[in-house]
């Protein structure tokens, strides 16, 4: 009854403390009644959240099934996605097209929906490519996208007598002219680390083509390749025309400087500059596609991140989930969404475009004419490579554009470490 029994008492006490939590952990989990489809949503902002709800309401009305939406803060959802998919994911969840979808497909976390795709219409070949895993099967239902382009104010261009540049030489000449006129040619903010990726992607795709860009992102090309060096050389040539101090400026501040006519142009995505413009000035906002660098590649590729839906491999109500996925691939579903969120463009060719703003119409046209669609650097490559290597590398480049060789050597050696890690 001395030490041993005391220890036994301690062990029992420990058991008494943990047991209830274990029991609680086992007890949860709703039973599938075949009527309810659960859906994991990262649309935590007011506008998209409401817009999605409109679309799901329409589905509930049509199918007599109910959708249980679990909304999680956008960034939190993204950061926890690995644990989410391994734990008890919802039947259907929102995610991105391209490499970041393929990554999960390869690990067996998604349900193949190739048979559903056979019945889909109105999606371009580029969209199908982005919905396809590395194994050639489809996993993704695209929903909407927003293209990246060079934004400007029509009134500023009119006032200065500027022409829309279609080649890189014209682009540089225009920047030079703007600088002479006392305007900062390019608004630029990269404090958040990702906005500069848009410029890099376009420079690379225009100079070296989409295929090279894709394999560079997949880790198959060397970053010390002269073709990559050329991209950074071109960029360095433009650097004197970019607004100084980009590493300390958010993209919002950059877009505001465009609105205030302090800067002339900005490489941004469709939803970005509009939000920063006062209501009255929104009509004055316009964009043109990133100019051509090599005639071989022209202006073929468009950077247009696609958002959409995936079905997890642990789906509980597969029948209901499939019906929902099928519904989400219809123009009606996209219309229901876009009615409340005018910052994106529907992917389906049959979607109703009559309510589009002029900017949306132009964006839709640009994307539907694209020969290839890229997804943005942080969606086209491994997330660890994008976040731990590329963000710092691009900020280093902005800070000191002259040491390109050192920079690229550094990227390449880190790439080797990351791409060989856990690839067996």
């Amino acid at each position, binding site marked *: *009854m*001395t030490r041993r*029994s*005391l220890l*036994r*008492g*301690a*062990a*029992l*006490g*420990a*058991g*008494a*403390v*943990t047991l209830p939590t274990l029991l609680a952990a086992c007890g949860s989990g709703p039973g599938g009644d075949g009527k309810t489809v659960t859906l994991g949503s990262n649309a935590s902002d007011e506008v998209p959240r409401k817009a999605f709800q409109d679309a799901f309401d329409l589905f509930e009305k049509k199918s007599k099934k109910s959708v249980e939406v679990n909304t999680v803060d956008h960034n939190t959802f*993204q*950061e926890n*996605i*690995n*644990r989410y*998919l*391994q734990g008890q994911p919802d039947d259907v969840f929102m995610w991105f097209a391209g490499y*970041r979808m393929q990554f999960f497909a390869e*690990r067996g*976390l998604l349900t193949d929906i190739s048979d559903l795709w056979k019945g889909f219409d109105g999606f371009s070949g580029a969209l199908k490519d982005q919905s396809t895993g590395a194994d050639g099967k489809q996993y993704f239902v695209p929903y909407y996208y927003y293209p990246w382009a060079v934004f400007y104010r029509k009134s500023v261009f009119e006032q200065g007598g500027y022409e829309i540049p279609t080649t890189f030489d014209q682009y540089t000449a225009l920047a030079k002219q703007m600088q002479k006129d006392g305007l900062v040619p390019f608004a630029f903010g990269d*404090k*958040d*680390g990702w906005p500069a990726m848009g410029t890099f992607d376009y420079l690379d795709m225009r100079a070296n083509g989409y295929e090279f860009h894709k394999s560079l992102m997949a880790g198959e090309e060397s970053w010390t390749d002269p073709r990559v060096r050329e991209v950074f050389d071109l960029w360095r040539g433009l650097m004197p025309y970019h607004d*100084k*101090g*980009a*590493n*300390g*400026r958010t993209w919002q*501040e950059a877009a505001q*400087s465009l609105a205030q006519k302090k800067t002339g142009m900005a490489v941004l995505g469709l939803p970005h500059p509009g939000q920063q413009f006062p209501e009255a000035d929104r009509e004055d906002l316009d964009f043109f596609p990133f100019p051509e660098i090599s005639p071989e590649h022209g202006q073929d590729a468009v950077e247009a991140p696609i958002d959409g839906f995936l079905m997890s491999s642990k789906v509980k109500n597969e029948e209901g989930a499939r019906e929902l996925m099928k519904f989400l691939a219809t123009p009606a579903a996209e219309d229901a969404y876009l009615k409340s969120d005018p910052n994106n463009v529907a992917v389906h060719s049959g979607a109703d475009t009559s309510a589009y703003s002029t900017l949306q119409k132009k964006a839709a046209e640009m994307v539907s004419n694209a020969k290839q669609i890229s997804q943005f650097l942080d969606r086209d490559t491994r*997330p*660890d490579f994008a*976040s*731990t290597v590329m*963000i*710092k590398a691009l*900020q*280093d480049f902005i*800070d000191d554009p002259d040491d390109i060789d050192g920079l690229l050597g*550094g990227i390449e*050696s*880190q790439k080797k*470490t*990351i791409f060989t*890690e*856990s690839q*067996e």
Partner: protein
Amino acid sequence: MPLVTHARRTRRRGPRRFTRRDLAVIGVLLGFTILLDLFIIWGPTVASVTLSFSSWDGLSDLSWVGGDNYDTLAGGDYPPFWPAVRNNLLWIAFLGLVATPFGLLLAVVIDRGVRFSRFYQSTIYLPVVLSLAVVGFIAQLIFSRDQGALNAILGNENNPTDWLGDRDLNIWMVLLAAGWRHTGYVMILYLAGLKAVAPELKEAAAIDGANERQTFLRVVFPTMRPVNVVVLVITVIEALRAFDIVYAINKGRNGLELLSVLVTDNIIGEASRIGFGSAIAVVLLTVSLGFIVTYLVQEMRGEEHR
């Protein structure tokens, strides 16, 4: 005192010291504490150290890579690492050598009873109530290049200083903001400490012919030893766990790298370089252990002397 003697007698009687109920109570209390200790402190520590020798993305199978992660760190194949170590050390140095002594100075001045001392006291203490994330946000309002208050006051429209974007400058601005908060914290602790110093001690020193400086350095300051220890520990902890302020400003990039941020960047999020992030965490643990061990050794020695 018959009760006490009775208790003593029963204790001497033999091994039967606890009733069943005592045992249950001790069992639950001790068991709970042991569990907490194991699960919250030792478990994660051992797991981190173990994982730091692996490569794992949280999804695929874990593979053991030996010391590769540490090679990558030390060999400069991970550029943010050394700046982060430097910044952490800089943080300790700044808080320890600038902010803490300044807090002590303020405490002494206020304790001597300047006019409006209560006003100063609350104003200087105010930032302590704010979380570092809020301090980071305030720092942005002041130091932003295009829209910040400081550049507006300085009026250098044409070539504004990029307080937070210039990587040679921003760490100092952040240290200033962090120090602003730390100073108030230290001041309050020392104010309490100074109040606790018996006035007789000061009088005795004065009678012995000590001037004010001597009184403070030789008598008052050493008397506050317990407070000094607390302040020292807090300073080191604050410096090593610094995270939220740089994260609020620019996610701890572009000159504001810290070890804690690198751990987060690698482990949390889609990146999920869990093995590699753990290796950085172990480095941080080692640095912390250096301070903890020194402190404990000092403490134990002090106890023996007392």
